Each structure stands twice: as structure tokens, then as C-alpha cells.
């Protein structure tokens, strides 16, 4: 047991992702400033609130995705989970059920589909990328089979105050996002489960050796993500009053992008919900800004891809002294 004359500098920063969060925040401010100069509509309350509402579903799903990635997994099927949940929600509304019944249905269906992914990756030992890829196919198939190419439309907007409403001058959407991220933060930092998530993401084998139920930790993480996807589906229906055929097509990749931009390590073991939230804001601001200045929205994907590559390169450069598993 060596003395404190260890020449290697200790990691003193309280939160290793603080740098990334700061950088993202500055980037948001800079980009926001740029857009507000380029377009008079950008900095208006109306526009910002509109952007917030559009970011709602992505923000909620990204919170869950952060948990799963910290745990060392990944889930590209969340769009499909959203879609199937939305269909169940739509059909339930059409059957005349009240929101009190429909909401739990949406949440539980999401959680169940998430648990399915968890099952595949633990009990059947399918690597997460393959398992969730396969699940995505299966969920898409279910969606097509149930609604074909048509939409489910004319759904009640009973829950839309959650999206469109205001509480004491604050947009309800903002409160919902803060609530979800607040609970997520508590889970991650203040509850034992959060420690278990980090441990499994760090080194699954060691976590098992010290007595953590690795399978249960993983299944729980995927289920939480599914639950949040179900919640996002509820809010989607509340906002659009429809279930459209393209629901959830981009949410998985955008959620992963937001999470990685926000500083969560793709290898698992550490991450930041605040960073993810900033990542979501950043992505949505760019999308909104581009539309306002007349640049085709098709450039978004290029920009997000470029950002991801930059961020990943920066991470890699930062880790260049660490011996890696070859």
C-alpha cells in the first residue's frame, strides 16, 4: 500500500464530464447567438417554446438511453418501442378508454418491450447491438401489420396540457423534462441502483464477482428506457393527436448522438444526464435554426454526424495515453 508520493496525478475533478458539459453549454450559447443574428424569429418566446415542445420526446428517450449506455449497452429499437406503444395507445383511445387507463397501458407496454430487449441481452446472451437491431425489425413489422400504411388519427388530446400547457408562466414541456431528468439524476447518483449501473458498465465480470445481480441490473435499465419510450409515445399522441407512419424513425440515433455528445462514454461506466440534456438542446436548436435561416433540414444529419466525429475524436485524443484493449 503505497504512500501518497504516487507520481500519477489523481483525478480531482468532482465530475469527469464537467468539461464536456461546459463546452456544450458554450456551444449552445454561441450557436444560439449566431442564429439569433441570422434570423429575427429565433430568439422569440414563441419559437423557443415551439422548439422545446419538439424536443420533448427526444429528451425523454435520451434520458433512458443515457442509463443504458452507462450500463454498457445500447438500444437501437426505441423508435420501434415508441411506435408499438403509440399504436396501443391509439387503439385504446379509439376503443373509448380514458386517459387514466391508456396512460398506464402506454407506459407498461414500453417497459415490457424494453424488458424483452433486456431478456435477449442477458438470458439469451445476444450482443445488445444485434438484439436491438433484431427487435427493431420485429417492432417495425408489428407496426406495419397493425396499421399498414395508414395513420391512426383523431385521437383525443386529453394529455396535451402536459405538452402545450403552461404552469405559472413556465411551459409544461419544460417541467416534464426537468421532472424526468430530475428523477433520472436521483436514480443515477443517489440510489444504489445507480452505482450498480456504473459498475456493470465499467466491468461486468467484476461487478458479478462482488455480488451485483448483473442480469437484473441490465434488464431494469432496458425496461426503464422502454418505459420512457412509452411515455414519449403518450406525449407524441397528446401533441399530434395522430399516430403517423414515420413515428420514431430517427429517435434512436438522435438519442444516441445526444448522449455521446453530452459526454457519456460509449464504452459505459460513466456518463452525464445533464450532458445528454444539453446534447438534446443543441441538436434541436441546430435543427430549428437551420429551418429559420432557410437551409434545408437535410443538412442536419451531416452536421450531427460531423459533430459526433469531432466529439469522438476529441475523446479518443484525450484517452490516447490509456492502454486500451487492442
Amino acid at each position, binding site marked *: *500500500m503505497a504512500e501518497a508520493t504516487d507520481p500519477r496525478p*489523481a483525478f480531482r475533478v468532482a465530475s469527469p464530464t464537467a468539461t464536456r458539459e461546459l463546452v456544450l453549454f458554450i456551444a449552445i450559447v454561441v450557436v444560439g447567438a449566431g442564429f439569433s443574428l441570422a434570423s429575427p424569429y429565433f430568439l422569440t418566446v414563441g419559437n423557443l417554446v415551439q422548439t422545446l415542445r419538439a424536443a420533448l420526446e427526444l429528451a425523454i428517450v435520451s434520458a433512458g438511453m443515457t442509463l443504458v449506455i452507462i450500463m454498457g449497452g445500447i438500444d437501437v429499437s426505441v423508435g420501434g418501442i415508441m411506435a408499438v406503444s403509440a399504436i396501443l395507445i391509439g387503439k385504446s383511445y379509439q376503443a373509448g378508454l380514458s386517459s387514466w387507463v391508456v396512460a398506464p397501458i402506454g407506459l407498461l407496454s414500453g417497459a415490457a418491450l424494453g424488458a424483452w430487449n433486456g431478456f435477449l441481452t442477458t438470458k439469451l446472451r445476444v450482443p445488445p447491438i444485434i438484439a436491438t437491431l433484431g427487435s427493431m425489425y420485429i417492432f417495425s413489422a408489428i407496426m406495419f401489420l397493425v396499421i399498414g400504411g395508414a395513420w391512426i388519427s383523431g385521437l383525443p388530446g386529453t394529455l396535451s396540457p402536459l405538452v402545450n400547457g403552461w404552469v405559472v408562466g413556465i411551459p409544461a414541456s419544460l417541467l416534464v423534462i426537468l421532472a424526468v431528468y430530475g428523477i433520472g439524476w436521483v436514480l443515477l447518483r443517489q440510489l444504489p441502483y445507480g452505482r450498480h449501473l456504473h459498475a456493470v458498465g465499467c466491468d461486468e465480470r*467484476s461487478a458479478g464477482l462482488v455480488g451485483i*445481480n448483473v442480469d437484473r441490473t441490465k434488464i431494469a435499465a432496458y425496461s426503464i428506457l422502454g418505459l420512457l419510450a412509452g411515455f414519449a409515445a403518450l406525449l407524441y399522441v397528446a401533441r399530434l393527436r395522430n399516430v403517423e407512419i414515420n413515428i420514431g424513425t430517427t429517435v434512436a440515433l438522435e438519442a444516441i448522438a445526444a448522449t455521446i455528445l453530452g459526454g457519456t462514454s460509449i464504452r459505459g461506466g460513466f456518463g452525464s444526464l445533464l450532458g445528454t440534456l444539453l446534447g438534446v438542446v443543441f441538436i434541436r436548436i441546430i435543427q430549428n435554426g437551420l429551418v429559420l435561416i432557410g437551409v434545408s433540414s437535410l443538412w442536419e444529419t451531416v452536421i450531427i454526424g460531423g459533430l459526433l466525429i469531432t466529439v469522438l475524436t476529441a475523446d479518443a485524443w484525450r484517452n490516447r495515453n490509456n492502454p486500451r484493449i487492442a
Partner: protein
Amino acid sequence: MLFEMTGITKRFGGLVALDRVDFSVREAEVMAIVGDNGAGKSTLIKTMSGAHAPDDGVIRMAGEAVRFRSPQDAWKSGIATIYQELALAGKMTVADNIFLGREIKRPILGIPFLDRAAMRKRTAELLNQLDVHVPSLDSWVETMSGGQRQGVAIARALNMDARLIIMDEPTAALAVAEVRKVLDFVTRLRGQGKSVVLISHNIQDVFAVSDRISVMRHGRRIAVRETRTTTPEEIIGLITGASEVRAAAS
């Protein structure tokens, strides 16, 4: 007899890693396990710690037959294990690691919140007890030296308040002064009435602290000796099988 294994057999596919092994540890005793590579030492303690389930045989803890289906079961029976690879989560702090799986909780409205203050306090106590110095309690374990990490792993075992502590090659990667500390610690544990099972390939260390020595060879326990009455030469002979050869030749 605190801990007893009788007729333990463990197979991996066609390989017999443990062949009808009998093994026992008394209260307040340091039992060393020695043997060549592949003799089955690691498999034996993984079976003791609950990481493996034996295919055959009986395990008894304080006279009662037990079955460990996971490391948690072993811990509940009072066995703490320090693995050779330490099993630490690199990107987590010292306190996180020590309390992984057995966090101190502070229930608020029924929800079990982490009691960080209590865990930090206890961590500081444990590190003090072991004379381990770390740059900061908030450092990530992967930034620390081998000796410091060994200290954290031992602190974790200490925190488990176990009756039997298993240590797999605890001095293998340490400097001389650090080795001294580990051996002192083992002696101190015995002084507290606990039992220690120590795997080591360092005969010096074994003779410095152990009360009895079990020799493993080819998956069998071929001998048990009282440390006082045996010699390093005899032990090495048993490990390498020289005594068998001699016996066969004579």
C-alpha cells in the same frame, strides 16, 4: 472447524479442475494454499467464494451444510473474497468500490437513498486502519497504483465483516514494503479471531504468516502440513511432485 469442504469436484467440459478435494479451515487460523500453475488453487477458492458451483461434494460453514449459488450467498455466510484481479470498478471512486453491493442506505419515504456521508466516513476509517493513503477519496480507482488498489480491495473485504477472508495472491504485484503491510494485516485478522485463506506462490510469505499449508497438485489436495513442523523444501517437493518421484524411485 469453521469451514469445511468434502469431496469437492469441479469439471469444465472434459477438464477436471478439482478432483474430490477435501479442505478445511479452523477458527482464527491462517491456511495457505500452494501449488503449481494449473493445480486448481483459483478454482478452489472460486468455489469457496460462490463464483463457481461444485459438481460434487459438500461445503460446510460452521457445521452447517451450505450451497452458494452466487457470490452474494457466500458473503451472507460470512466469506469475503479478494480476487487476484481485484475486481474493482476502475471508473468509480474508492468509497464506491468499497461499498459496491452493500451500500449504506438512508431511507426517505421508503426510498433507499445512498448515505454518502456515512460511506465516506467509514471509508476513511478503513483506509486508516489499513494504513492506506490515497490522493483523494474522490479519485477514480484506475488512477491509483497497484498497492493502493490492493488496499482498496482489502478494505472492501474488511468492510464485509466476514468470518473467513480469502486472498488470492495478494502480494504478487506488490513492492517489499507493501508486502509487509499485507502480511501484518493477515496476522492482525487472525488476532481478531477471523480466519484467512491465503493463496500464494511465494513460499517465504507462506511460512511468515500461515498456521497450516494445503498443497494442491493436478486438481487434488495432496497434503496438509502444520507450518511449524514442516520446511520449505518439503513443501516445494510436494508442489513439484519431487517427493512422489523420490518415493517411486526408492
